[in-house]
């Protein structure tokens, strides 16, 4: 176990991963021969058109879907074991806050379910509210917050129980671009501050390039990986890095990868 604590050790390992759904129209290959290693502290983005399996892959890691072939380990365990050990926090596209609970109550929810004691719950809620810059909003109800703030609360909720993996499925997909830029910037800060391993599904090329240390380009039918790009960008990333030559080059390579994936789909 000790070596997994070191930065760079593999956290998520997929080897020859396959997932086939049986439908009325015959089998659908959601994932085909996916090989990927995510190391501790990586920020990995999954990008590709609808149906490329990026969300499915994330759901396999979270043990919400079960692969039909190949092997997948999370922290050296099966995804199911990892889920039971609460190895990851999952952020969905919708904030999914319970309208009958306050913001603090929503963040406390996983802690209550996991059986933390009351003092510990309160401490952790305070800490993560601070982390996502929602200090003082704990007593508000979700409807009193903007969409961006709600999504931040949902990130706080995923951080509250100190899982070292954060899985995010298009968390900012429903937000406007200005809010999105701001949240992307904050997410990078959060990542730097917590040192978590992040898996991030997105539709947006600039978002993927801006955030990631590793970009996984995927294509549909069957869902597969077409390119894995290790980003040469530095860890410190101000928003205007997006105008740099390196940034544009990576974005170009992602776009090429996406186009290539689309080419054989007729």
């Amino acid at each position, binding site marked *: 176990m000790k070596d997994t604590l070191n930065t760079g050790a593999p956290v998520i390992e997929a080897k020859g991963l396959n997932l086939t759904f049986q439908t009325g129209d015959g089998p659908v290959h959601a994932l085909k021969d996916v090989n990927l290693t995510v190391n501790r502290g990586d920020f990995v983005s999954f990008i590709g058109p609808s149906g490329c399996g990026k969300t499915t892959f994330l*759901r396999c890691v*979270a*043990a*919400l879907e079960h692969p039909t072939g190949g092997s997948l380990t999370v922290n050296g365990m099966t995804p199911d074991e990892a*889920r*039971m050990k*609460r190895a*990851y*926090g*999952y952020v*969905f*596209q*919708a904030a*999914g806050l*319970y*309208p*009958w*609970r*306050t913001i603090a109550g929503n963040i406390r*929810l*996983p802690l*209550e*379910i*996991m059986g933390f004691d009351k003092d510990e719950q309160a401490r952790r809620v305070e800490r993560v509210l601070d982390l996502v810059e929602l200090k003082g909003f704990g007593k508000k*109800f979700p*409807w009193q917050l903007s969409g961006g703030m709600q999504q931040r609360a949902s990130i706080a909720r995923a951080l509250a*129980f100190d899982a070292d993996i954060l899985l995010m499925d298009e968390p900012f997909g429903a937000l406007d671009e200005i809010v999105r830029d701001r949240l992307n910037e904050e997410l990078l800060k959060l990542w730097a501050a917590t040192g978590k391993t992040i898996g991030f599904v997105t539709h947006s090329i600039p978002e993927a390039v801006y955030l990631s240390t590793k970009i996984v380009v995927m294509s549909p039918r069957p869902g597969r990986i077409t390119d894995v790009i290790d980003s040469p960008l530095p860890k410190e990333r101000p928003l205007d890095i997006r105008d740099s030559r390196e940034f544009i080059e990576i974005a170009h390579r992602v776009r090429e990868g996406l186009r290539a994936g689309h080419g054989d789909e007729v």
Partner: protein
Amino acid sequence: MKGKTVPVLVVLGIIVVIWYICTVWKNAAWVQDQAGRDGRTVGFGELVTATMALERPMLPAPHQVAAALWDGIAGQAVTSKRSLVYHGWVTLEATLAGFALGIVLGVSLAVGIVYFRVMEMTVMPWAVISQTIPIVALAPMIVVLSNTLSLGEALGLENRLVSKTIISAYLSFFPVLVGMVKGLRSPDAMQLDQLATWNASGWQSFLYLRLPASMPYFFASLKVAIAAALVGAIVGELPTGAVEGLGARMLVASQFGQPLLMWASLFAAALVAGLLILGVGALQRAADRAMGVRA
């Protein structure tokens, strides 16, 4: 609330006017027959006043009903068998007991149906069929059966109350069942996945998500259920040998030709229904406040 008062009063006024016109129209023949027997003719003015002052009118005038209602509520000791408060209480007692039993039954069946597929296939069709049987046909059978089995004595209660409670619950469990099945299923796949990522147990998913999510559906169904419970209690009073309760009062009045009493009992029942609906509404508002619903 203020904005609603005027429209409600206007509609009420229109109804009262139409009612008065109908009173004259329905009772005129009887007044003219009486006058003809006495060899008199009646003018229009006399006709109008006479039709509204009959002791046993075909259709009593609103103020006659109001007077009878007032007499029944305020003019009698509440322990008197002539008091509508007394009979209203008897009906209310059975209504609330049936309502409570209906809620328990409806909610527990709904939980079973949501969690066990077998129950969905076996219980749901029977619940639907149960509501297609006319309650007036079923009520006497329930009364006779619960009397023969002495259910009341076994529970230390009056047999009459027990049979009325059963009939009342029979009508009121259904809306609760349907509402709660829908409510408990209202959380979407994402919310359930979310709980799975926290490795929540089935009981925790129920307690933290399904149950609170079902509350709006629960209260919507309570409003239907409380009305059904009252109807059940009143119908249950008709075949019980008609001793106590608003239903019994209506039956007696209609059998012994006392239209004023019949109408007064009817309105007393409407009053009880109104109070019950207000009660459920207050309960819902309290729950909404506790659950942070946007005002």
